[in-house]
């Protein structure tokens, strides 16, 4: 562990964390753009997400009379927890100190912390839509979280470590082996990522229909910089799941070592992988329709089943072999 905890390591960790919040709106803008092109629209420029954030940050925040202090604290907690969770996922290079501070289980815990505050904030003002969103979000979270843990446990059991850097190192050292457990876990992880980031077919990020909202329903009372932080956190979460799939399941190309070349290659490769994943997400959102809410449990049960199959096929087929 001590070889992580060097001064350049800490510096790079800070840089990588800042890169997360800097790149997050770009990914969302890219997905929107691709989706618009697929639907024969021009769509907003890719950089529109940045402009939206700036606009919101410059506006006054309006807070309901009935809101408690928790309502105003929640955006900061949600943003911080999501960002910290993201900072533990290697983006450009492996073996950074952030991976030692928090492993994959802590990552899931931090995301759960963000979700809990998001749901509490939704219930704080005391409107019907907020409670509705919170109740649905917690149901989906309750089913998605175990699926996610099982999917990542498949990887961590293979690498005998819950430290994401070690997991990536292990896979790179092992070379490309097509394991059945991986395919199951990857399938489960993709489904979880879709559900957790509130994309079609589980939730629709662009919906204007209150009764079908999940994530947006909790944010209805937010405005100004509070809304900006909540939106930004959601974008960071999308980038986090994208990176998790891109760098943990398909780690090839990630930088190892602190040289400028490694960093440059790492950045280029991860951007290419994320662009491909984003395009895939846009295609999926274009061809699929949103499910009814009570279809979502079946969707998430499938995710849990896939992840569990991944874990079982690992311990049964691959451990002894």
């Amino acid at each position: 562990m001590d070889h992580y905890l060097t001064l350049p390591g800490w510096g790079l960790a800070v840089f990588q964390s800042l890169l997360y919040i800097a790149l997050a709106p770009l990914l969302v803008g890219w997905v929107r753009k691709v989706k618009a092109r697929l639907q024969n629209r021009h769509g907003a420029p890719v950089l529109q997400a940045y402009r939206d954030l700036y606009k919101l940050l410059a506006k006054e925040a309006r807070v309901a009379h009935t809101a408690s202090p928790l309502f105003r604290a929640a955006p900061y907690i949600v943003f911080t927890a999501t960002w910290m969770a993201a900072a533990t996922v290697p983006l450009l290079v492996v073996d950074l100190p952030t991976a030692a501070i928090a492993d994959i289980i802590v990552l899931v815990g931090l995301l759960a912390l963000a979700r809990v505050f998001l749901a509490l904030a939704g219930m704080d003002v005391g409107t019907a839509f907020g409670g509705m969103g919170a109740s649905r979000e917690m149901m989906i979270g309750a089913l998605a979280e175990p699926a996610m843990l099982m999917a990542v446990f498949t990887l961590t059991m293979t690498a005998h470590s819950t430290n994401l850097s070690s997991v990536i190192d292990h896979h790179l050292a092992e070379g490309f082996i097509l394991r059945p457990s991986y395919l199951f876990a990857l399938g489960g992880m993709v489904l979880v990522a879709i559900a957790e980031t509130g994309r079609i077919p589980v939730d629709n990020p662009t919906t204007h229909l209150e009764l079908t909202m999940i994530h947006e329903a909790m944010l209805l009372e937010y405005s100004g910089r509070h809304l900006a932080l909540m939106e930004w956190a959601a974008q960071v979460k999308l980038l986090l799941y994208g990176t998790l799939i891109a760098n943990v399941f398909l780690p090839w190309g990630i930088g190892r070592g602190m040289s400028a070349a490694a960093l440059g290659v790492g950045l280029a490769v991860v951007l290419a992988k994320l662009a491909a994943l984003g395009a895939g997400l846009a295609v999926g959102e274009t061809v699929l329709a949103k499910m009814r809410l009570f279809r979502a449990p079946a969707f998430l049960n499938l995710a849990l089943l896939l992840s569990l199959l991944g874990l079982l096929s690992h311990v049964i087929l691959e451990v002894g072999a």
Partner: protein
Amino acid sequence: MTMQTALALAGLAVALALTSAVVSLLAKRVPATLRLVATPLLGLAGLAALAAGLAALLLGGSIQATLPLGLPWLPWHVRLDALAGFFLLLIGVVTCAVGLYGPAYIRSFEHGPDSLTALGGFSGLFVTGMLMVVLADDAFLFMVAWELMSLSSYFLVAYHHEHGANRRAAFLYLLMAHVGGLMILLGYGVLAAFGTGFSFTELRAAQLPPVWAGVAFTLAFIGFGMKAGLVPLHAWLPAAHPVAPSHISALMSGVMLKVAVYGFIRVVFDLIGEFPWQWGVAVLTIGSVSALYGVLAAMMQSDLKRLLAYSSVENLGIIFIGLGLSLLFLSTGFRALGALAFVAALYHCLNHAVFKGLLFLGAGAILHSTHEHDLDQMGGLLRRMPWTGFFFLVGVLAISALPPFNGFVSEWLTFQAALQSWQLESGVLRSLVPIVSAVLALTGALVAATFVKVYGIAFLGQARSRHVRRARPGPWGMQAGQGWLALLCLLLGAFPTWVIELIDAVPREVLGGGLPQAGVHGWLWLTPVSAQTASYSGPLVVLMLAGIGLTAFWGLNHLWARGAPVRWVRRGDAWDCGFAPPSQRMQYTATSFAQPIRRVFGLLFTIDESVTQQEDGTARHRLKIGDRFWGWLYLPIADAVESAAKRVVRLQSGSVRVYLGWTLATLVGLLWIIT
């Protein structure tokens, strides 16, 4: 300090608790005695127990003593070792908080119809009983203390006996506590049959054939599991815990259940000492079922204290998952991994005592100022009772296993133990453990949903009834009790390395090996197996969460706001998408919050839901959620007992001659057996 002093401190704790019980006898004449003397004495007893436990854990080793009490041929033995010390510490932590909280809470009973003497006396005896169970070093003293604990808590459950439901709950508790007690007694009997006496030293030396060891294990598991509220023997728990006064509920849920865990560890890990892997599988299975069923049942509740009681079933399930993993690893020869799972279980014991104590005290504070225990009537309490609201939030985050609080650390350790199952030889066991960890993950996520419901409905939103709207913050003593436990929730989560170093004395003593790796990288880094495998830094997570959050707050509210052309925060009506101004009746209730999960997991419960149209055009929604285990287990047993009783009643003919005949027959039968 020596172990001698530690034992003396433990003795002082017992004496103080007994004194508290005796002093309460005056409460009938001078009601203030209970508030001013008896409850503070209980708090001091807690403090002494805490000090004794800490000393025992820090010093290591053990000390024995014989008391001049008991039977002529079997004096009472007491012993203070690391295991007993850990549980003394746990009892002490919560009892301290109760000592701070109790005086203000009891004040409202001074003008009530119920006897203060009974409350104070039985509280003192209850704590005495728990302390003695932990200190006992022979089966006889253990059972006496155990019964003292069970009986005195029965009277506390029945404290508000004017309600029929409370009397029924207390009776069910008494019945099940005694069936459990009988099982434990028989378990000791089996052990003693192969040993030379009833002291634990002799029981430990007993050589049991595998079959009889299995019988002793089964009896102990049923007996202690019944007290710990494991599914399916949990029926008494959600009935009994909520009806006791809230500070007693905190002791029952936070501490008494842990005393059952202590008993299980003492008998299985210490006295029996050798186990086949099947025991681990049994404990794992029961633990998983309890965890999942407990949290789902908690999700369905609308009564706050009942919900907390079901959540105790869930947490005890998690503890037994840890113990089961430990049994599994120890029986297959992985001593270090067994110690890891064992430490995770103990850590969770301590955590659950702290946060469940905190949550029950919070529920008591709500009850104290609003006289309300139904979540569907609450709302907006965070603004009415800010400190209680804040401490309760800490408890909610801790129980939901969210970093950086304490619940997360023990769950993390349990996962780390489960993830080492690839080392097991048997493929069946290797695939069983991942399923258990899936259950654990699902449980953790559902707990978060349950407690978002609790906090969101009770403390956020708008008040749903008039008396809740007029709630006032409680007296400072009640807040201090909660504050102490909330602080511990954060400290136990932020500095796991120190806590584990403290707990480590227990596995070193009981299992013969601890977790040497846990703290080798300094107090910042928790590395239970090795740094390569997993590491977690509680202090840095706290520091970064607080640092980034406060920087963002300061940056946006001060730096960024400078020169802003508009007012920075404006208060207004809730928007609610521009519909009519929201009233408190339009909010989600606890019942509606749970509806999606009720729909997904509805099969596990008997749900009776109906909507009827009233004559005045309004609709009425009725919802009744039942425990399926009543139908599966309890009602058949009750029916069988009843039909057996109906058969036996034929003997009761009313004729003296027939009775004399039966007596004679019994006598002859007994004589025949003897000869």
